[in-house]
């Protein structure tokens, strides 16, 4: 299984968009976190866009950026949306409401509470009737999403992987603390075995993890399941030719990405 990365979307505090992130991850500019602005995904009818939560905006913004740089139409592209925490704000609001004597759950909040809500909104915006999925694997979420997307490319379509996470809100964060907002999108396609370049994936035993050099970015990587993607993105930014990246996978395992 060899994969090409055709385009990238990126959003993190202080780094909005892949061009800005690439410069920073390649070590050409210093990392200075700043609160993310309100992101405004393209392509959705105003009515739908109004209903988007902050988490959905984050996911859809990076999806839109990667798709804008893609050679193929979104209507010919499958999607994998991967998030460890999902939409904690919505879950928190619904659980608060349900703790009241006669709860009145908002219908919009309820259908937005499903883990596949960003995937659903994306398919509506892109008018894409292609397969889409939504997955989770706790701290292994990025690697698991990458594997899911990689295996889906064998169905003969490009696959847009969108990984996104925001920390859970109070009080949910007490036993699941997190740090920083992060999302990235990788448009992946299958490469034939004959092609010399392209990413290869393999699962290995051991829990080694590739880290990132900047301490603030490393803090983000460790505090956010989706941001476990950062070492791979740093390598794609140009800094890590020939290296192998170890991404944390399900317990005691790592996903080794090579061929960068």
């Amino acid at each position, binding site marked *: 299984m060899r994969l090409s990365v055709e385009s990238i979307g990126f959003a993190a505090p202080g780094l909005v968009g892949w061009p800005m992130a690439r410069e920073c991850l390649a070590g050409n500019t210093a990392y200075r976190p700043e609160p993310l602005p309100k992101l405004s995904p393209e392509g959705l009818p105003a009515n739908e866009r109004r209903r988007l939560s902050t988490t959905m905006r984050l996911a859809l913004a990076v999806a839109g950026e990667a798709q804008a740089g893609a050679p193929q139409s979104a209507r010919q592209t499958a999607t994998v949306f991967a998030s460890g925490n999902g939409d904690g704000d919505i879950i928190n609001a619904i659980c608060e409401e349900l703790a009241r004597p006669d709860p009145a759950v908002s219908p919009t909040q309820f259908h937005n509470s499903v883990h596949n809500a960003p995937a659903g909104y994306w398919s*509506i915006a892109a008018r894409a009737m292609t397969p889409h999925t*939504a997955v989770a694997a706790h701290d292994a979420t990025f690697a698991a999403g990458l594997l899911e997307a990689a295996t889906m490319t064998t169905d003969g379509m490009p696959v847009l992987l969108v990984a996104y996470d925001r920390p859970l809100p109070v009080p949910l964060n007490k036993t699941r603390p997190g740090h920083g907002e992060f999302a990235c999108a990788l448009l992946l396609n299958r490469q034939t075995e004959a092609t010399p370049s392209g990413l290869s994936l393999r699962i290995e035993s051991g829990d080694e993890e590739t880290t990132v050099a900047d301490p603030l970015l490393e803090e983000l990587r460790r505090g956010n399941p989706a941001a476990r993607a950062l070492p791979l993105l740093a390598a794609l930014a140009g800094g890590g030719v020939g290296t192998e990246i170890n991404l944390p996978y399900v317990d005691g395992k790592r996903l080794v990405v090579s061929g960068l």
Partner: protein
Amino acid sequence: MNNSPMRPLTASAWTVTSALGHGRSAALESLRNNRGGLTRCDYPQAKLDTWIGRVTGLEDYRLPGELAEWDCRNNRLAHLALNQDGFLDECRRLRERYGAEQVGVFLGTSTSGIELTERAYRERHDTGELPEWFSYSHSQDMFTLPAFLRTALGLSGPALAVSTACSSSAKVFATAARYMQAGLCRAALVGGVDSLCLMTLYGFHSLQLVSAAPCRPADAERDGINLGEAAGFALLEWSDACGDQDSPMLLGFGESGDAHHMSAPHPEGAGAALAMQAALDRSGLKPADVDWVHLHGTGTPANDQAEDLAVRRVFGPGQISSSTKGWCGHTLGAAGIMGFGIAALAMEHGFVPASLNTHKVDPAIDADIVLENREQPVSRVMVNAFGFGGSNASLVVGRGVR
């Protein structure tokens, strides 16, 4: 898109637990005796006029000591289901045959253990903090179910939670097939669990999709769903390598998006038709080869109409079809594995289960909706599972074929 025929997989062991009973023999007995599992809603704290498909015995169920930290309704239901039909022994057999690292764990759920979070919010301290007994990662986290089962069963292969609302536990079959095809594992545990909770009861109520009566899929008078809970699992091995001729097989899978609306189906069932066609293409079968369509059939006016149009588009007029939501309710993320299990029972015992509670089929519905259990050989079934966000998945399952 490449939907060329897939290498079939055999479910060498499988089990389901729902309002029809604990394990597959209980489900068969209920189906054979026309004994539905829906009861008037008596779920604690839910002051709603509706019917539910509740699994008995969960309130008093205790996880064994070494798994106690995983306690929540969803994991209790999962564990209860694992202990039926000799399934634990089969998991052991699979682990010994392939090695723990070669068995993938791919499970679907829509709400995971959120019932425990709801309870924690009701018991918040004055400071707003959740009680000390609450652990997010052992209950509500979407990955809790696969993590819990890997621990309980000693499996260490690739793992994933698929959470695409009501298509979740159908889509895990596709994930398992792709991981096995890619050589990432040699066998897989698939399935799904969803348990009753206030979020889905009140949420579907807020969307005005819940019926105050037992649900009547495809009936002229149908007016909504009943929520249910279920757990089901299957062990998948390559059919050509496992030497098992009797067990149900996965012959094809298809996935699609509606690209239409978050909580309403495409009115012509265009996405549903794409999923069924892709599943047929992967199975290498023609529409006429399918004996029965196990409909998603939730019982809302819009869903059943859209699905019927899709069935007609793929199979032509008068396709033998029924929904089993009138038996055990809509089990959400477990709907796909419930459909798989009931299809397996139908194939093994030679009958098509009726759409229970459906009396007068809507004249706008074209399919041959089965109103009484119908004795007939069944060797191939299309199982549909469609969810919010327009997430569609269809499976072609067969037995004694190829």
